[in-house]
């Protein structure tokens, strides 16, 4: 087990290094001259050269990469070019916000969709199954911005049940924060429900059809016990993998939702940084999103192996 963990961890570190190279290389691709972009078209050539020198973009690329990554590792994310304050002070709260929204969305969607998938699998081919499948497919097929808009109009503007903005007033307590996050979470639940339920249903059906389940039934074990002890455990394996891959989407990939609900999440920060060519913020923001995703998949991997002894000893892939 510890060898497996060590290997997984080592691979994650290598992936992380590659990610940092990709992120850095991509931001080098952004065209034009940093000083010119920031100072504007009317700035003199000397000013631009001076700015570039001050920000070190006239140094060799490897040098720049090293400076960036060594600072990043130590938690120094540099100054935002756009706002002239430290990037960490901006991205920190945004990341926390994103994690809060993702957490609530998960707490809502995981039980609902697993339940949906399990019920659909148990009622395979019957009306319940059809309804769950069709509802899931329809919700998943409508872009999240359409669902979000519909929710805002119905629950926020017409009925006024829930606040339309996800940002809560400063100093708001736990429940107020949840109240503000409910609408955007609903939109995310709508998008993810069909997907997770579908994977769960497929996993369930496979597990129900598997020999061990049949054997257990034939041994005369009660159905509930078979389902909970044997089937679910195996059926949920693919679901765990799917949920882990959705973390990337939920943290960083939500810029449409964050924009619609005026939420200061990390996706919104990245989007604004990209638009305003705020390189330092963009690099660190993207890197953090990658970091969170890789951590989530690592955790999922470990969880997967704990639940599935075959993987634990057989090595990955």
């Amino acid at each position, binding site marked *: 087990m510890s060898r497996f963990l060590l290997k997984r961890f080592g691979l994650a570190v290598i992936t992380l290094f590659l990610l940092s190279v990709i992120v850095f290389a991509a931001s080098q691709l952004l065209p034009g001259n940093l000083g010119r972009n920031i*100072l504007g*078209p*009317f700035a003199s050539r000397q000013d631009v050269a001076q700015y570039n020198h001050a920000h070190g973009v006239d140094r060799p690329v490897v040098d720049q990469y090293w400076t960036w990554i060594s600072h990043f590792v130590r938690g120094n994310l540099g100054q*935002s070019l*756009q*706002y*002239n*304050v430290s990037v960490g002070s*901006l991205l920190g*709260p945004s990341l926390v916000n994103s994690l809060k929204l993702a957490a609530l969305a998960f707490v809502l969607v995981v039980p609902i969709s697993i339940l949906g998938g399990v019920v659909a699998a148990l009622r395979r081919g019957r009306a319940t199954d059809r309804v769950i499948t069709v509802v899931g497919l329809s919700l998943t097929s409508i872009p999240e911005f359409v669902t979000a*808009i519909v929710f*805002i*109009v119905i629950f*926020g*503007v017409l009925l*006024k049940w829930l*606040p*339309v*903005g996800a*940002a809560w*007033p*400063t100093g708001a307590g736990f429940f107020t924060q949840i109240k503000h996050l409910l609408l955007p979470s609903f939109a995310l639940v709508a998008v993810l429900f069909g997907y997770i339920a579908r994977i769960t249903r497929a996993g369930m059906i496979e597990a129900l059809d598997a020999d061990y389940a049949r054997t257990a039934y034939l041994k005369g074990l009660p159905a509930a016990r078979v389902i909970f002890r044997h089937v679910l455990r195996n059926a949920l394996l693919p679901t765990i993998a799917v949920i882990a891959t959705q973390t990337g989407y939920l943290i960083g990939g939500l810029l449409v939702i964050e*924009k*619609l*609900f*005026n939420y*200061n999440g990390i996706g*919104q*920060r990245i989007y*604004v940084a990209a*638009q*305003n060519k705020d390189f330092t913020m963009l690099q660190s923001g993207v890197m953090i999103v990658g970091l969170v995703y890789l951590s989530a998949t690592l955790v999922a991997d470990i969880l997967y192996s704990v639940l599935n002894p075959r993987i634990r000893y057989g090595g990955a892939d």
Partner: protein
Amino acid sequence: MNRKSMREADELRRLAGPIEGNVIDELVDGEMDRSTFIKRASVAGLSFASIGTILEAFGHPGIAHAAVAAGKAGGRLRLGIIPGPARDLEPSAFADHGTLATGSICGEFLTRSRQNLTLAPELATSWKSNADGTQWAFNIRKGVKFANGQPLTAADVVATYKRLTDPNGGSSALSAFKGLLGPGGIKAVGDHTVVFYLQAASASFPYLTSNTTYQAIILPANYQMGTFSKTPQTTGPFVMTSYTPGVGAKFDRNPNWWNGPALLDGVDVTYYSDNAAVDAALLGGQLDLISQVNYSSDRPLFHNGNVVIFSTSGAPHRQIAMLVQTAAANPALKDYRVRQAIALAFDRDTAVKQLLGGYGDVGNDSPFAPVYPSTDKSVPQRHQDLAAAKKLLQQSGHGRGFSVTLTTEKFQEIPQLAQLLAANAKKIGVNIKLNIITSDAYYGGTYSGGATGRGTTPWLNSPMDITDWGHRSVPNVVLTSAVHSGGVWNEADYSSKVVDKAIADYEAALSLKDQRKYAKIIETQMLHDSPYIFPYFFKWTQAGSKRVKGFKADAIGTQALGKVSLG
């Protein structure tokens, strides 16, 4: 006309400086109506009391001293600013709505341009020019304190204006003061007088000290650039207590406000980037006021019984430019008759009605907006005339039509304006192809160099384009930068000796009579040459809930909330 006020007016006339004298004379000569007189006199530095006296003396109704209904004190106003600041909050570098709207909640100016383009005293109590309008002396209000208790003196004003006019300080106000005021021309006389020594005569200089130059927030002499968002020292009704880029800001009542205290306990600002989100927040009861709304992007707020629209006439506008010469120009558009034909084909009345919901005034293809006192309104208004347009096309040899590409930005109603123009032009056989790009791309690229000397930026190098222009209290900046042949923002590459000369004369003219004379020359010549279509001038619109009392929108977008209350 009673004798007492007649005598007082005469007295004022004698005491008045030459510019004020001109203004009074024009009123007497019947060349100015009452409202124009008030505008002009206030710029020249006559106090409102004097203006009232003069008006009464000459048989006009005086200025009603509308009793300001005392609003209910208390509460925090929730203001949505859209879009939020795109840059660091540094007053001298303010260049976008988010920064200026935020800064204006706590910051104050020497003077304030009011809704009807009259100029009111703020941190200056009075101002006066020398005989030829090259020196302006401003008396600074006594007893004003910055948030930290430090008193306001002339030295603070001098330091602020030196920062704004420093050619190497990254100031965004440089273009406004260019050719008019440099750091060497700002001098303190004693503790409470500042004299501006101008490089050229200007009758309208006081406007530049108002919120029109939104960078000109008076800051302490020892202010360090770049510290505004952390330790802001301002004189206004509120003090900024926290600021989070891209998220929001908080303001508390300034106990030391000279004109106060403010009715509100404070202001909570949230930044938005999405119109629907900010509209929903107002309609959903999470906001009290929105910093700017636009009929095309915030339509649900208009004609809504629960929403109050605060509006004021102004000069923000769009300019449809047709490149008249350079290599990039469309061959057909080099002919003034073709440009006239397109201007005549355009249905500006429909544009105002449909795109602005009526919140605007039609333009007459020059920067002279109806709201400016110097505009000569005797110049005939251009309306859609398809027959005349077709005839002009025939005469120019393009009777069978031609194609041209119009490049513009995806910003507010501009794409719709472009589509309306294209639909109108089609009726006379001109095929306008649209290339609609983001504002970033539209204003991107270089502004000088290259084959034409105009760089690569789309907005200076497209055969046709539409550009958004902000409000100006006087048309001077638009005239010198977009119409004058040497202008840096001359999108049409327009060059007319007649107009160049008239612009110089206009700027030097001190009397309204002379200004109108040159305005007429410019208006007439621009109608003939038609390098630009000025489709309309906007009213500035903001939206709020019915609870917001005592708020007056201004055309620049500054948010003056000192006298606002929540009912």
